């Protein structure tokens, strides 16, 4: 590891650790994790899927807020490397998706269409329980090197620990509740993005940026603002108008 990369890695963990002190926002924390993956690892896109109480996977974070990218992760509730990783609890590495078109007839063409040709899925684990999977998509054929894989896994571990915040894996009711809250937060974020995109006539990515700006300017958690927008408890023009303060 060269010095510059070492510093980046350290910064990534420090930033994750910082986000855990005090009240942190689960969507922002996990979004941050996927962004770090893209920055530090040899991958083009990263996304995180969490299982609900029934074992169904849902997208909870991604390095891009583009709807089509999110959909590619979401598709894996039905098939794909992340689902396999979640079910088996072990890393699934696919150096060349082309050779697995029969294995995942929906997922492979969808990934290729968006320019991804390799995938690695790493389990989010807490002791013996699998919570979900971290999906890493590459734009070039080939396997991730061991350094990248273990760094990705380390980031996934930190996120798992943060996510369940000290709840024992034996306390299933609380554990499920915690995961459910994270999933619900994501639904609110998507609804709020839609509402802002419609109101301000901007893309979903821009709508997310506005949401983020507003939450930072007002020192509120991202998902609290998203929920307030989705439930219409704050006027949308307040949040959609935060573009001005960005300039």
């Amino acid at each position: 590891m060269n010095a510059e990369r070492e510093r980046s890695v350290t910064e990534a963990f420090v930033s994750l650790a910082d986000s855990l002190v005090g009240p942190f926002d689960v969507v922002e924390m996990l979004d941050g994790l996927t962004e770090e993956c893209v920055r530090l690892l040899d991958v083009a896109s990263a996304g995180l899927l969490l299982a609900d109480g029934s074992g169904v996977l849902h997208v909870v974070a991604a390095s891009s807020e583009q709807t089509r990218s999110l959909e590619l992760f979401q598709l894996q509730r039905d098939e794909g490397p992340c689902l396999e990783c979640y079910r088996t609890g072990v890393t699934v590495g696919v150096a060349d998706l082309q050779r697995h078109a029969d294995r995942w007839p929906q997922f492979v063409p969808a990934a290729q269409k968006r320019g991804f040709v390799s995938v690695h899925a790493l389990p989010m684990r807490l002791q013996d329980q699998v919570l979900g999977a971290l999906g890493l998509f590459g734009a070039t054929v080939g396997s991730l090197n061991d350094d990248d894989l273990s760094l990705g896994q380390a980031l996934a571990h930190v996120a798992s620990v943060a996510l369940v915040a000290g709840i024992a894996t034996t306390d299933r009711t609380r554990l499920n509740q915690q995961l459910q809250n994270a999933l619900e937060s994501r639904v609110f974020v998507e609804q709020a993005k839609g509402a802002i995109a419609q109101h301000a006539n901007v893309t979903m990515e821009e709508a997310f940026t506005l949401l983020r700006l507003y939450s930072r300017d007002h020192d509120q958690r991202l998902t609290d603002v998203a929920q307030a927008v989705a439930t219409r408890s704050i006027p949308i023009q307040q949040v959609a108008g935060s573009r001005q303060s960005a300039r």
Partner: protein
Amino acid sequence: MAGAVGPVESADRLCHACVDLLRVDGAAISYVHHGTSRGTFGSSDELSRRWDQFQFTFGEGPCLDAVRQGRPVVAGDLQDPKEVRWPAFAGAMLGDGVRGVFAFPVRIAASRIGALDLFRRTPGAIDDDVLDGAGWASQLAALPLLDLISADVDWEAIGEGGGWSQLESLERIEVYQATGMVQVQLDVDATEALIRLRGYAFSHDMTISEVAWAIVERQLSLSPDDFGTDPDGTATSLL
């Protein structure tokens, strides 16, 4: 709705299944909108309906708490002196010989619209397998509730397969985003926006995902006129 099972009947069936499968003595589904109690919707039998309605009579109970808090609320023994959460409700239940009540929130796209309540005559904690089963059942309960609050839609046109695939069709990123967009387009809340989306899909023979993509990609914008029967833009008499 010839030949189709109406929402009340399917809610009743679900409650019967809970009694059969989850080792409880009664089950009911209540409908709660905007945190206001609206009433019991389906039940396994008349007694369960009565028990469920106690919560609306007294304005307190595990179902209302489950909806408010968005998490399961369990009371293994209403007779336990430490159980002080709902004195009036507990008194009435104990009078009928009910010791345990377990309530699970019912959600549609993160909006809590009701609860599934399980009743037991014997005290005790709830087993993990019952907890799992109740989790599934409370997800399924979203369907009849959704049908109930969108009663103006022609459900004979439903072409999306069984209950699970219908529920799954709602749990998609593009549907969440489109719901937000429709909220602004029609100036309605999230539940109603979702009902409009679903109604548009059925009446135009499209999947919900197709409608959602068309909205997200701005090829389609919903207007109150899309629902000819109700020009003022209100979804149903229930909302």
